[in-house]
């Protein structure tokens, strides 16, 4: 084994600031949330002053089979979140990001610059500005419906009748730039000779994508999916667009947690939801990490 440059004591000393930081801002809040999830702590009413331990009651209520899939309850919320993650992160952002990156692979020109600039602009504009713009865009008398009317199509009440579709489109538009940039820099690292050889032997574009690009991108795809799944799972921005409604039809889990904790101020119950969300995140992250480690071992 290689000998360490620093002594054990010295390396701990260098690590100490980071460890203290993690302990104070990560571990402590985690444990206090965990602890609070077994109480009926609120911020208003008598339980704010004298919270009691309620054991597993908060968890039992969340998984109450009678109504946990009802609109506005956690199960329903998790189901919407799953649709949101699959729709906007996996299919939307990763799919669209990959398509744009591959389409403009080894290409230069105005179109590429325009597409990249727009995608990045959508990514870097502040949430509130973006949400306001989309609110105006999707309004019954908004820009999108004016476009639809202009081309002779029926206008739709997007945020009212299709709230999930609206926030999925919104989040795809919002976050595609990250996947696009990640995949284009990954593609740039593939030696041009691979593709040139494929051209010489007459491979079709699909064959080149499937047999050359995809295998080489696999590690990057895993990284991308981990990050955007976790971000999308926890994103709160749709709140600015729909507030989780109408009638809780876009009540994704981040909005649900917010409503329970910071609208109804039921800290105990909200903490229990937060613990469950945390566990789901850990599970998702470990699945992806497991897959990408296995692939690294295979390629090594």
């Amino acid at each position, binding site marked *: 084994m290689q000998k360490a440059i620093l002594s054990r004591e010295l390396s701990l000393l260098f690590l100490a600031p980071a460890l203290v930081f993690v302990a104070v801002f990560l571990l402590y809040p985690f444990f206090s949330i965990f602890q609070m999830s077994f109480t009926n702590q*609120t911020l208003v009413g008598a339980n704010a002053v004298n919270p009691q331990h309620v054991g597993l009651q908060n968890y039992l209520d969340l998984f109450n089979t009678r109504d946990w899939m009802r609109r506005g309850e956690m199960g329903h919320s998790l189901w919407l979140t799953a649709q949101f993650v699959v729709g906007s992160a996996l299919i939307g952002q990763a799919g669209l990001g990959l398509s744009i990156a591959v389409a403009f692979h080894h290409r230069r020109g105005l179109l590429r610059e325009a597409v990249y600039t727009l995608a990045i602009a959508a990514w870097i504009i502040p949430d509130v500005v973006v949400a306001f713009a989309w609110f105006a865009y999707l309004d019954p008398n908004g820009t999108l419906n004016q476009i639809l009317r202009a081309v002779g199509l029926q206008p739709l009440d997007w945020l*009212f009748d299709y709230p999930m579709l609206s926030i999925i489109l919104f989040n795809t538009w919002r976050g595609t730039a990250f996947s696009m940039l990640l995949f284009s820099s990954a593609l740039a690292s593939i030696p041009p000779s691979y593709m040139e050889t494929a051209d010489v032997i007459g491979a079709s574009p699909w064959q080149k994508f499937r047999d050359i690009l995809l295998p080489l991108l696999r590690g990057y795809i895993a990284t991308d999916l981990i990050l955007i799944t976790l971000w999308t799972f926890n994103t709160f921005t749709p709140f600015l667009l729909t507030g989780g*409604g109408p009638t809780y039809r876009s009540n994704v889990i981040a909005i649900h947690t917010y409503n329970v904790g910071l609208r109804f101020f039921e800290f105990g119950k909200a903490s229990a939801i937060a613990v469950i969300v945390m566990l789901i995140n850990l599970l998702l992250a470990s699945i992806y990490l497991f897959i990408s480690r296995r692939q690294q071992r295979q390629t090594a």
Partner: protein
Amino acid sequence: MKSKLHCFLMLMCLLVFVLSSAAHAQEAVEIKIGGVSGVEVRWLNEMVKPGFEAMMAEAGTPVTVTVVEFSGSGEDLRQQYVLDLGAGTGADVMSFDGFWLPEFAEGGLLKPLTEVVGERVLEWEGWSVIPEGIQAIMSYNGQLFGIPRGTDARVIWYRTDLFEQAGLPTNWQPTSWEELLDAARTIKSALPGVTPLQLNAGTAMGEASTLQGYIMALLGAGHHVYDFEAKKWIVSSPAILATLELFEIIYNTEGLGEVRWQLVRNGRDLSFEAFSKGQVAMLVEGDFLWRGPLAPGTGNFAMPNRNEVVTFALMPAREPGAGYLGQDFVSASGGTGFVLNANSANPELAWELMTYMFSKESLDALQQLQPRIRARLDVEVPNDPVMSRIASEVLPLSTIRPQLPEYNQVSAQIQLMTERIVSGEMTPMEAMQAYDAAVTQIVGEDNVIRIPLDK
């Protein structure tokens, strides 16, 4: 080089000295008033602030009054207050809705005036001209937490111009739900494009759904949300079912109301706007609608011709005599005011400011901007026959919400129950059963009663 450094240090010292002495000279204490909106902001900035600052400067205790405007909904304001007070901060004087008080007091977020300022608050001249029933708006468990602005009442506002076009009388007064619905049906068939009747429901409108929607209808069906004698919440009854069926008729089976406004976030404003433009014929709302959003000149949806085309009818019971306490007509009242923040660094001065705001002179000045029923009996309602009628005809019929810490949670369930009807998610019976289960979980099985449904 050294002298340059020396010079620089000297300059810095001088600068610090000048800055600190400037801060010393400006020793006026800042008192903040939070949560206010509309014409009150104007009143506070143009009348209260200069008057109070001049008075205090003369007395040798200079203060600066800062008015912090709030433009969100009542729910947003309550949320802001819980977080501010929970974190030990917030404005010194806060505009406050009376029905929030029990849970804030129980949660230790607000303290009685006598505790924050001292017994001397009881010596204020204003208390003698504010009836005890009105003082109760800003009281909990017999202790005063603030000074009430006044009370209000809820009625059916309607547009006489639309009624005339539809061939309905312009001095209309329904005596039953059926007559109310008949008028709505007439408008629906006579005036396409006009929404006949809006009775608030749903979670997006918050307390507006509970008080001017559900409770207004429920009182007409025979009881309140709470049985004040048995001290229990009524969670299942023929009256609740009848109320939910009324929502079902208005929004689903007959399409007399606009569903969208009840479910989207800015729905209440959309309904006000539509009413002001003559696109809604009847709106069940508080007198706030008249003196706030529709007020000529000052409202967000100002109607220059408000006095000519808007008037009100009393909310009828389901059948004559079938209403709450056997009444023919019903109404519900709330009340707001200002509380003193227990976290205030200068509670004495904040109290001085509150008494200045609620002096007869200040309130008379406010009446010029927005006439309404004020808490003080010695402040008259100038020249607004509609507001005078609210005081003389509607208030005597009106009832208030239970002042209990659980109320807000129950109210949230009421909003959800009505939303489930309006959105078509549940039938009235299913929604009532879900409400029963949820409220029982909040207040406990010992604190609920169920009135059997007659088959």
